[in-house]
Every structure is written in C-alpha cells, then in structure tokens.
C-alpha cells in the first residue's frame, strides 16, 4: 500500500487512499485548511461535540451544570464544562512531580501534574496527569480536572442571613492515611487550614471553615484528594431540610417510561440550586 505507481493513479480527482506521494494536491489543502490546523485559540469556537450531551449543551438546551448533576450524567467532554461555567473557572497547578522508571538506558522521567480548578462559587475539580513534558501534563490535568467538577454545598454557621459561607455540617473525607475534617465556622473566621487544602477550599467558594487533619499529610496527593472527597460529601449529607420527598424529573436521555407511571405525591424540590433557607 505504501508504493503508488507514478503513472496511472487510481480514480479521477480527489479520493481517499491516495497515498503519501500526493503532495501536489496539498496546495489546495494548505490554503483551505490552514486555519483549521493553525490557531489553537479558536478551539472552543470550533468545538464539534462528540456526545449527545455535548450536542445538547452546544445547542443551548442545557444551561447550567446543575441540570447535569441532577441526573448524574457523565460528562465526557471538557468543553461542556467550559461552555457552562465559562470564564469563571480558574485553575491552579498544585504540584509537578517527576516520576522515574528504570530502563536499560538509564532512567526515564515523566512529570505528574496535579491541577485544581474551580469557580469559587460552588464547583471544584481535581485532575492528575502524567506526561513526558510538563506542559503536556499540565494541559492534560486541566482537562481531567474540568471533567471531574463536582458541586459543593455551603451552609450557615448560625443565623441564616446573607449568602452561605461555610460547610453545612461537619464532614470528613479520607484518602490513604489522611483524614480531613471540615467544621463550620462563623463569618470572618476565614479558612483555617494548611496551605494545600486551603487552596482547594478557596476554589470551592467556602469562605470560613475550621479544619482538622490526621495522618501523613505530607503526602500531598492524599491530602488534596481527602479534601476533595470531603467536599463531595457535602451534598451527600441528609439534613432536615431535605426530608421532603423529591419528585423525579425526566432526564434528557431517559424516555417517557414507567418512571412517570408510578404515582408520586411530593412537591417538586430543586435540590441543587436553592440557597439554604
């Protein structure tokens, strides 16, 4: 297949499988497609969605991440999060760690990047990526972090005035030997935590919290993951105001099936969006 007869090429005009030797036609290709290959910056505008969820987001049928969280739909394209959270999303590299593998010809070093993304308003994500170059690892980690964005529930310490500023209750997360405990704090207390979880909590949009950690917190990976785990649990905690039964709504992917045939009696609760009353 690699050899192509210089004489009688198969077919007329442009066809698939023309072979490497066909450089002559590239002139047109270069002119026409140059802009596709060129600017990396206009990647976002040129995003062609690959999944159905992506197509729904691009169309504009889905306007907030909460609609996706409500139905636990897996987010497979980071551009979805980009479109929905837009410019509010900030990222930070927590650590670049070289890891090495022994080969016959010496050591092969790759770089592992830990990136945290967040919009300081209830969404955080954590991404880890290993690659040969630092820049590639960081880029990949940012994408992974966007894919793993989770909602964070915030609540009040005492009087329910103003916006929620702290965790709704005491929560604890564990990873490896590290356990991190978040305790609600009054306004103005600030984030009382070590440097590493403080960053994550700032990205989450939590303003005041007391923390307590145990275990080998020197291991940054476990420490960060334990904090992240803790934040994920904030929406998993059943508080008295969630005692009312939820009426389930139809997911964009689910067909109109037996779900609505069953009689349900509760009031519809938008359990993701409301501020705690």
């Amino acid at each position: 297949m690699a050899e192509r007869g210089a004489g009688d090429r198969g077919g007329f005009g442009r066809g698939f499988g023309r072979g490497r030797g066909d450089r002559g036609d590239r002139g047109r290709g270069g002119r026409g497609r140059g802009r596709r290959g060129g600017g990396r910056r206009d990647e976002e505008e040129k995003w062609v969605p690959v999944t159905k969820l992506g197509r729904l987001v691009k169309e504009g049928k889905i306007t907030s991440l909460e609609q996706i969280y409500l139905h636990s739909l897996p987010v497979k394209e980071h551009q979805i999060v980009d479109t929905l959270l837009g410019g509010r999303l900030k990222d930070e590299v927590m650590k670049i760690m070289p890891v090495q593998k022994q080969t016959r010809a010496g050591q092969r070093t790759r770089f592992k990047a830990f990136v945290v993304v967040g919009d300081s308003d209830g969404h955080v994500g954590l991404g880890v990526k290993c690659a040969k170059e630092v820049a590639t690892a960081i880029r990949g980690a940012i994408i992974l972090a966007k894919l793993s964005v989770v909602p964070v529930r915030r609540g009040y310490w005492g009087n329910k005035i103003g916006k929620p500023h702290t965790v709704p209750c005491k929560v604890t997360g564990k990873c490896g030997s590290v356990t991190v405990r978040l305790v609600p704090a009054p306004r103005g207390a600030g984030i009382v935590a070590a440097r590493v979880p403080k960053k994550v909590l700032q990205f989450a949009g939590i303003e005041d919290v007391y923390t307590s950690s145990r275990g080998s917190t020197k291991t940054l990976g476990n420490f960060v993951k334990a904090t992240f785990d803790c934040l994920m649990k904030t929406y998993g905690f059943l508080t008295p105001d969630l005692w009312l039964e939820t009426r389930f709504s139809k997911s964009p992917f689910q067909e109109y099936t037996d779900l609505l045939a069953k009689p349900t009696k509760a009031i519809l609760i938008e359990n993701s969006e409301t501020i705690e009353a």
Partner: protein
Amino acid sequence: MDPDTNDIISFQELSLDKENELEELEEEDELEEYVTVGFLEKPKHPKFLLRHRFPSKTGGAPAWLDPLDLPTGKSSICDFCEEPLQFLLQIYAPISDKESTFHRMLYVFLCPSMICLLQNQYEQWKHREEDPRRSVKVFRCQLPRFNAFYSSEPPRRDGNDKPLIVGAALCSWCGTWKGEKVCSSCKRAPYCSKKHQARHWKSGHKIQCHQIIGNLETNSSSVLREKPPDKVACRLWPEYEMVIEDECAFDLEGSEDISCETSSLVPKHVTDDTYQFLLDKFEADDNKKSWASFQERISKCPSQVLRYSRDLMVNPLWPLSIGRPSLVNIPKCKYCNGSLCYEFQIMPQLLYYLGVKNDSDSLDWGVIVIYTCLASCESNVRYKEEFTWVQLYPTAPVT
C-alpha cells in the same frame, strides 16, 4: 514478614507493569499512522455532487457509480423495521494497484431509528451462519477505467460533464433506491417500496397523478420528467461534500512551554509511592483510557467526520474499550471468502452536522467502523455488501 515483602514486591511489579503499558501506549502514538480524515463542506454547486464527478458526499441522495444494477430487495431495507434505509454517506476510494478498482465507491446506509440501531448492535456479535439482521449496510462498487458508464478521461470540471448513459429510474419519494414498482394509476411514478409510494401519495402525488394521466392522454410520446424528490418532505439528511485531508497536516509545532517555573505548593523533588493510588482513582479504567486517547487524537482536527486508512498496521480509533470486536467477530468476505480489513470509520461529529435532534430516542452512535474485503474482489453482484461494526455509548452511566 515474608508475606508482607511478597506483597510489596508484587505491588511494585504491578505498578511497573502499568508503567509498561502506559509506555507502550505512548510509543504507539508516536508511530506515524497514516490516516486521512474527511471534513464536511457545503458544496459549491449541487452539480458537483453528481455521479460523473465521482464525489465523496454526505446526505441527500446517493450518486450511484453503476447507475443500472442498483441494490434491491432485502439489501435496501432495514432488517428490523422493514423501512427502506436512508443514505448516510459515500466515499470515493479508488485503489491504484488493480485495474478493476480504478473507480471505487463505498456507500453507507442506515436506518434512522435508534431502536433499530440498538438491535443492530446486539446482532452484530452473531456469526454469519446465524444470518444476523442489520440496520446499517455498506455497499462497495468498483469499475475499471474503461467502462460503459463514464468517459475514460477525467472530468473536465467546466460544467459540461455528463455521464455517458442515463441511469435507472429512482424512487420518486426518496430518490435513493431503484424505482422498480410504479404507481398503479398513472403508471409513471417509480417507487422503491410500498411505504414510499404511500407517503408520496399522501403528500402530493394524489393530485399530481390525475394531471399526469391527463397529460398522457393528450401527449403520449413525451417522457414526463418527474420532479426531483422533495428532500425536506422525506427527511433526507442535508447534503454536504466531503473534503479530504491528511491527518499529519494538523500536527502542531512543539507545544509552547507553559513556564516550568509555575509555583507549586510543594517543592518539586519530593516524590512518593502513594501517588499510584491517586492515579488509580483519577486516571485508570480502560474505558476512560480509551476515551482519553480518543479525545486526544481527534483534538488535532476536531471537526473530522471520517477517518480512512487502508494500511494494515492502522487500528480503528475506538472511543470506548467495551463493545470492540475481536478477530473472531469479523467474518470473511461474503463473495471471495478472503479476510476483511479495516477501511474507514464514521465519527460521531457527523451527527452534529446532520442536525440530528437530541431527544432521548434520537440517533446517536460512538463510532461506526467499516471493514471491507482486503482484495476488493470482483463478483457479478455490482454492489457488494461489506461488514460494519457499530459501537454505541452505553446508556447507563459506566463508572
């Protein structure tokens, strides 16, 4: 102590193996795989997409290479719902090694119903002896350079090109399949199936039929030109031309280095073994890995709709790891009993361009991979059926 050390050793071996795998994956990526990708573009003029120009196109009606001996009967309908299949795309893929494949076109048809596609995905695992039913069909047609239908010189592209003979009558409703049956009242309008005849009748032929009969009585010698099929009414997909590019044309120059001196909270030289655990949680899992490499590959040219490569070394780009065929699942060629090889795959970006709706029951696929006869064999059947494999996204969330 012994069991502990054994555990530690085996854990390390495991992690080394994993590193091995990762390394192998990376090395594979570095091998220059020669792949051509197809993009969609609005055609400059619909005339350019007629069959004597040997187009590669999507949507609309197919430009049949051999205009007479079209596929009929069971090959033109979905095996599940018995509706005639809808034209998806065709590509012009000549092979220069053999004389008989100077012109070579591959046509893809599929049933637009998602229910049929789900059933198709189940049936494609079955062996050929069980006579599986399909809702996605691919046809290959090839002609030598000197043939009865087209001139042996390349088309001049000056607006005067014409095919040598007029083709067979096509269905008045879809314009896709051969119109073997005719309307029983006017005896003029051809149809490919009863269903299309019924639809055309309801949407306008009822009125036209009488006019045609009237015209016939007055002027019996004129051959009535039927109106071209109404694309909107019969929901044919929008027509595009497919433009071909090499994938390596999109390799960007070395990535700009985001400054390595990014401040990290912990000094760089601190290493730790427990990061492996973190890796497992955030990276591993076969499905996610294949999805990640899929995304990376298509990020070079995100609007690609088709990937083509007849190179035997090239594997199809699968988005997921589940639902892939093994060598056993790919049958032999129906006509020459030779082996099939991967030729091209249709990407899900095409759905975006086709404007397919995004309801819960609308068409959606992960990738459609087409395997064709390695030898591109000849046989008396003009449009030979090839093998397709559909990989769908799992409907239930896979953790």
